[in-house]
């Protein structure tokens, strides 16, 4: 049976898995961004998460999930260099604040963290659903997580699936935020890179044991 609580060590393994996934799919993320943005999403995120990896080592073995998330937040904010820096940075920061001092997160705690992260992104970027942004992956993920019951693995899997579906569903949309909003209808048919990187992060979470 899978563990029912996500502790600091799990959080660290998740972030390492995100860094590995971003690194291996960097070109793909940048290609999505080249179509409707400024062709730097993959490189920017990779730079950010590589910097995170460098700092994780310095963290205490007993670091809480909140402490890990906060380290990710401050590192992304100062190293990413594109809109994804402040957006994901704020998400991880709000998530860290929601996690607080807890040693581990149960399903309800996980939903709190995801919700706080999404709310942080919405507050920072002021995007709404259907604006063709990462919010289109985050909000379905939070909704699915909240409805998934009290098994953390089920919550993680529901969030990952909904985020991926949300990312795919950005393809027919016209963008109302970010660089793609300058393109009008030319953005139609392209997946939002931020929604895709959100799906990638939540998929990594679902696969982290």
């Amino acid at each position, binding site marked *: 049976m899978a563990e029912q609580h996500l502790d600091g060590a799990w959080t660290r393994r998740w972030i390492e898995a995100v860094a590995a996934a971003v690194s291996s799919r960097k070109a793909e993320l940048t290609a999505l961004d080249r179509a409707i943005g*400024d062709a*730097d999403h993959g490189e*920017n995120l990779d730079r950010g998460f590589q910097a995170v990896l460098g700092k994780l080592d310095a963290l205490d073995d007993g670091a809480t999930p909140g402490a890990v998330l906060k380290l990710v937040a401050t590192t992304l*904010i*100062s*190293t990413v*260099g*594109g*809109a*994804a*820096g*402040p*957006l994901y*940075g*704020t998400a991880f920061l709000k998530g860290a604040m929601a996690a607080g001092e807890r040693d581990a997160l149960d399903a309800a705690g996980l939903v709190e963290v995801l919700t706080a992260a999404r709310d942080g992104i919405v507050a*920072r*970027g002021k995007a709404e659903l259907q604006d063709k942004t990462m919010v289109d992956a985050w909000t379905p993920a939070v909704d699915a997580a909240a409805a998934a019951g009290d098994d953390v693995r089920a919550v993680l899997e529901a969030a990952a699936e909904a985020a991926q579906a949300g990312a795919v569903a950005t393809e027919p949309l016209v963008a109302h935020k*970010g*660089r793609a909003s300058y393109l009008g209808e030319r953005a139609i048919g392209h997946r939002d890179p931020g929604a895709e990187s959100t799906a990638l992060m939540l998929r990594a979470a679902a696969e982290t044991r």
Partner: protein
Amino acid sequence: MTVGLVVVSHSARIAEGVVELAAQMAPSVTIAAAGGTDDGGIGTSFDRIQAALAEAESGDGVVVLCDLGSAVLTAETALELAEAPERIRIADAPIVEGAVAAAVAAESGDGLDAVVAAAEARQAEAAPPQAGDEPAGEAQRLELVLENEHGLHARPAAELVRTASGFDAAVTVEGVDAKSMLRVLALGLDRGSRVVFEATGPDARDALAAIEALARNRFGE
């Protein structure tokens, strides 16, 4: 002490260029550039913005001008994490015009709110000060011909704005607020233009006398 400015751009050269342009009209205002990423690429750097905020802050606050997307988001994040966020304001203004207008307002000693308002003033919503707002006396009028070779371009316009701002009077030039750099510049007044100034309020006469003297001196050119 004056309000300081920070110019945040995706490009280091844009940020430095805007600072250079704005500083020409505001020699005593600290204007710091925060352009590009830490390694000199295109993007925005949280650390550069933080450093620029520290450099521009002299106790009277800082107004931030941004270009696109992540420049605004990163500036907002820096503001949120700042020790004294109440002394930092992000102006919703075009980066070049906003920086120039804010620099002139800061140079003339305006406070934080007034510098933000100067940056955000838009030609589209240009409304001349209403005479009815100034119960003290009837409107004074001055008409003159511009002698400056390039008309009322940035530097002479800045002189006019600075002079008009020094008086307790509502002053208009060709019907727009003479204390607003953006509105004065948007008039595009050329050499030889016949220009009408009007002023109401306690200092109306003095304001127009000072403007007349300034014009006779070709606005310092």
